[in-house]
């Protein structure tokens, strides 16, 4: 009996040679995935002069942490941008969870007559959108939120897919009988929602919350459109702006007289790479712990 089982497993697995070969391919691909990250890290801890002379290298010839010294002590902009990123990420993720969990709940209730209509108006935004210009005009000319934190929060508040995922979660995991029983006991809708429904929805809230955090942390698009005030630059957008000014200099270096003046205001190459590492850092360190939630959300979301 036991022997039989072992042969099953052996038949069910690939041969040792092909296993070794596939592992080698996987290791090479994995290296290709992280090499650029390691490279940027390598540059960030290299001495600036060495980088200028020898070019970008994975393993630094002369190690120096000056770039990080600069970023952590001299660069006020970066601190402020970090603050903006953290603030927007916190506010945005929390507000988004509130908006989504509230909106999805009535859609999950069988006794709510207009659930189809309110589901459809969310769903329709996945099919058709007016495009960049009308959206831009509404933000700037009607809501007047250009150059406010809210311009970076509002775009991510209600991703339609998350509303649908949340609704499906409520429908499949919250038994109607519990809600009915609570109603009979005289509990109000809001009490049922906050004391019964939300505690049962923790896994789903965690998944959507993490996707929100990722969105706000990595957002450079809303500031690109709506933020011109340097004090409100977030980290990603600050990185973007620095990149832009460098491209500008290299493309105009012959015709410009004040190049050195612009250059003086731009962090050195190693400092730039250090900034990129600081922007990535929290995500790379945290994601192995939260990966499971992302995988769950992804598989639910893609196949609904």
């Amino acid at each position, binding site marked *: 009996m036991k022997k039989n089982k072992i042969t099953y497993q052996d038949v069910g697995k690939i041969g040792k040679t092909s296993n070794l070969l596939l592992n080698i391919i996987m290791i090479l691909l994995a290296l290709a*995935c992280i090499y650029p990250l390691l490279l940027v890290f390598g540059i960030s801890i290299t001495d600036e002069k060495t980088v200028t002379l020898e070019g970008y290298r994975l393993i630094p010839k002369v190690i120096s942490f000056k770039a990080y010294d600069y970023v952590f002590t001299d660069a006020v902009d970066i601190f402020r941008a970090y603050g903006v990123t953290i603030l927007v990420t916190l506010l945005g993720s929390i507000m988004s969870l509130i908006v989504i969990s509230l*909106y999805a709940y009535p859609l999950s209730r069988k006794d709510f007559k207009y659930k189809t209509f309110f589901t459809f108006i969310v769903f329709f935004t996945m099919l058709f959108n007016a495009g960049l210009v009308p959206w831009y005009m509404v933000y700037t000319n009607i809501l007047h939120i250009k150059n406010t934190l809210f311009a970076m929060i509002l*775009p991510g508040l209600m991703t339609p897919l998350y509303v649908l995922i949340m609704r499906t979660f409520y429908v499949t995991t919250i038994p109607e009988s519990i809600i009915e029983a609570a109603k009979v006991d005289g509990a109000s809708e809001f009490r049922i929602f906050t004391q019964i429904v939300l505690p049962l929805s923790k896994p789903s809230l965690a998944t959507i919350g993490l996707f929100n955090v990722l969105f706000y942390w990595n957002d450079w698009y809303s500031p690109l459109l709506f933020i011109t005030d340097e004090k409100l630059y977030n980290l990603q957008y600050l990185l973007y702006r620095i990149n832009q000014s460098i491209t500008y200099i290299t493309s105009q270096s012959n015709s410009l007289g004040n190049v050195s003046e612009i250059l003086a205001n731009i962090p050195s190459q190693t400092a730039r790479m250090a900034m990129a590492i600081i922007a990535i850092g929290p995500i790379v360190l945290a994601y192995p712990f939260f990966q499971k939630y992302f995988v769950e959300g992804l598989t639910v979301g893609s196949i609904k």
Partner: protein
Amino acid sequence: MKKSKKKATFVEELKRNKSLFIMLIPGILVLLSNNYLPMPGVLLAFKDYNYTKGFFKSDWVGFDNFKYLFNSSQAYIITRNTILYNLAFIIISLTLALGLAIILNELRNKRLAKIYQSVFFLPYFLSWVVVSYLVYSLLSSDQGVFNNLLVHFNMKPINWYIEAKFWPAILVFVNTWKWTGYDSIIYLAAIVGIDKSLYEAAAIDGASRVKQIMYITIPSIMPVITILTLLKIGRIFYGDFGLFWNIPKNMGVLYNVTNVIDTYVYRALVQAGDIGMATASGLYQATVGFILVLAANFVVRRFNKENALM
């Protein structure tokens, strides 16, 4: 008569489920400001927008903005780029990501497989701005790793950011790097769900592992493959703005091969300030995109009703 009856029931429902309606309010406000207030704005596509005259008083110009767009060579270039890049991305997802998922499932050491999977997933978590830093460290003409290698082998360094011929390959490569891990996770989740007894039965019948992949694994996850692909085809008219905007660094000489509809609309709005044209291009994209999404959904429905968006 009928209408008034419907109104009455709406009021009744409003009274009965007041709390549920209140819960909807924040979401409705967000939907209004992000999606529904902008919708009448598509009328700008038929106007010659004038900043001092504003939205209502600007002159109507009929289809002039569209005529101008389609008479320029740009309409063809941006449509071609958007579709061809997306096609390439779809094909790569179908081969590379699917292959990766199958291999990860076959590896003998599951713990190693998990580690590989985590590493492949990593690029998904990086913003396009950060990715543009990574790409720059490889492609920079003075310090970049590629040019260092070329010089090392006594070859002429290449000024990557002004050589258009390399960019289709670069963009496809970068996009593959960012999304393959993500796609493979979706496929892998489907593969893991396949009934194990199918494989056991096949093994008893003497089917090799390769045969099992061909005749069990792939057919079993065919619905997932079909649906994902159709949904992607439905979005073939939308370019990934972050990729096409950040990675080529907005270099004018590269526009021919890097400009997609989304970047074109942005440039028309911000750089040229041509509101009418920008709205018209956006509406062109939204309309064709809408038809394609509906068509893709129609096909998905025929395969599997549950997986269609509607």
